[in-house]
């Protein structure tokens, strides 16, 4: 066996060396990106083990010893922390509500744009509705605060109608609508791009056939257009499900106030506060681990369901 294996190994090694020799410039070009991926993607990925370690700044992530309880100390601490379950619940509720409301919006808008006969008007609407996508989170939250605070334009209108002013920014019950509403405002236009390109790829003959069968515009939309873009919708839905746990915490951190924290605090913001502000590194990493697991679960389940029902899937 050994005798047989040795020559083969050698030739493999030689083949590799020859390939390396031939492609040496390509390997050279790849060197910097390779170093980048190792240092800033794979090293932090290994850093997830921090959840099972007792972090010692001097020893670094790799050198720190394993935590007590067979490394499970922090994971158990997280599971037993009632506040973790509050933020866990907040994350799930906020994201599911957000997905249900924001996901159909660009599809409806794309269908409406598709009905516009004047190409120029359509283009103007697109240009204008894409714009909010390019504004920074800080700017969006800034504008929202100035419009919805107690002296802002919205409350001025409410007051002028003789109603009581609403504390949109601090009242916990308005946090989710404000968060989701601003998400729609920022992304509805931009997110139509994918659906519009799917719409433009539909076969015109199908419409002709539907018309001959006596289908009106509405029936055509229902039976030709929507089934036509369904694969795109499903792929986008799976992708959205994959992102379901990573809420835009950068925005939430800006919107969070002492009074809405009971609903606005989500896993990522909790990780930020425990990890960065309080330097509880291992604990925060363990909290984050739960988020990754739930995300993975969400993508897998959606992918499984869609493969069963529609033959469209990511893998």
């Amino acid at each position, binding site marked *: 066996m050994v005798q047989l294996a040795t020559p083969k190994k050698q030739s493999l090694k030689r083949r590799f060396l020859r390939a*390396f020799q031939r*492609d040496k*410039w*390509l*390997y*050279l*070009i*790849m060197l910097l*990106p*390779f170093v*980048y*991926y190792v240092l*800033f*993607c*794979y*090293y*932090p*990925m290994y*850093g*997830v083990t*921090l959840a099972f370690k007792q*972090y010692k700044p001097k020893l*670094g*992530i790799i050198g720190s010893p394993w935590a007590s309880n067979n490394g499970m100390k922090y994971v158990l601490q997280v599971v037993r922390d009632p506040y973790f379950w509050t933020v866990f619940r907040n994350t799930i509720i906020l994201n599911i509500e957000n997905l249900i409301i924001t996901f159909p919006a660009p599809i409806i808008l794309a269908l409406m744009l598709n*009905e*516009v*006969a004047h190409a120029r*008007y359509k283009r*103007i609407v697109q*240009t*204008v*509705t*894409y714009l909010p996508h*390019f*504004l*920074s989170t*800080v*700017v969006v939250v*800034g*504008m*929202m*605060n*100035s*419009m919805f605070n107690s*002296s802002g*334009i919205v409350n*001025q209108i409410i007051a002028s109608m003789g109603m009581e002013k609403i504390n949109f920014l601090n009242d916990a019950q308005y946090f989710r609508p404000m968060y989701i509403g601003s998400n729609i405002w920022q992304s509805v236009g*931009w997110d139509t791009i*994918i659906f519009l390109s799917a719409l433009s790829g539909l076969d015109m003959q199908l419409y002709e056939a539907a018309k001959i069968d006596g289908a*009106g*515009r509405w029936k055509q939309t229902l039976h030709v257009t929507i089934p036509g873009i369904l694969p795109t919708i499903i*792929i986008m839905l799976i992708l959205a499900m994959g992102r379901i746990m990573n809420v835009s915490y*950068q925005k939430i951190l800006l919107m969070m106030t002492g009074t809405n924290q009971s609903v606005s605090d989500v896993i*990522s913001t909790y*990780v930020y506060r425990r*990890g*960065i502000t309080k330097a509880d*590194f291992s604990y925060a*990493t363990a909290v984050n681990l739960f988020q*990754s697991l739930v995300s993975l679960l969400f993508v897998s389940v959606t992918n499984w369901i869609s493969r069963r029902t529609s033959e469209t899937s990511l893998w």
Partner: protein
Amino acid sequence: MKIKEGGVSRTVFQIFNYCFLFLLMLVCLYPLYLQFITSISHGLEVMKGGITLIPRNLTLQTYTTLVRGELFMYMKNTVVYTVVGTLVNLMMSCLCAYPLARRTFSGRKFFTAMVTVTLFFSGGMIPMYLTVRSFGMMDTMWALILPGAISTYNMIIIRTAFQSIPESLIESAQLDGANDVIVLFRIVIPLSKATLATMLLFYSVTHWNSYFDAMLYLNKKELYPLQIMLRNMLIGGLFNEETAIAGVSADSFAVTDATLRSAAIIVTTLPILIVYPFVQRYFVKGVMIGSVKG
């Protein structure tokens, strides 16, 4: 291809549709417009309320106050981070995309796998923070630039563009004695200008708009970018802290927290607003290339 059909209901729908889309445009633009007219109105008028369409008691004092503060320092930082960051992004993405685009590259499978994994898994906030800290990059601009040097999504778009260049062109250059470095910089990059321009826009907008990395990695005020200035103005009534240096007497009320914030929002967004109409179609193109791949 729209053929006139349907009767009254169709017309009614069309009218509704056009009006709805018009309203939507107003909804998209009005918040920015409101910030603009607030920023050039007199602070006292803003306090009284009722400014909805036309600015009242025009004044530029808000802007001069901002300028006399440390606006230019923040702006300079943002410009430096954006320019250097975007250059690093483009350079690194091209270096990574080229070998992956070459079908004959023996390491192609390995490196493609290595890159793809990062689309689905990441270390998360804390390991990343500790990594940056352990490399001694805290309070340097590299903390904002190196950790995101390659956006794998954008890199894949560039790779797709590189792949569309005929292999024969590259081979003939190599027969003339050009090595891959020369091929990349003399042939492949010049032929992919359109895609690279799109990527330049994507990367630079990201840098211009980001605030969170700066919040994580920078503790020195003189390193803060514009977005952090704006964030700090939002969080507290930062009137005094941000403008005391400018020596403005707060009792004139010409300039208030509200007008200052609006002006800061306008200043922060202005570069994007100016460039946007001209480059919008490139952005859209970028999304299309990305989606064809995905």
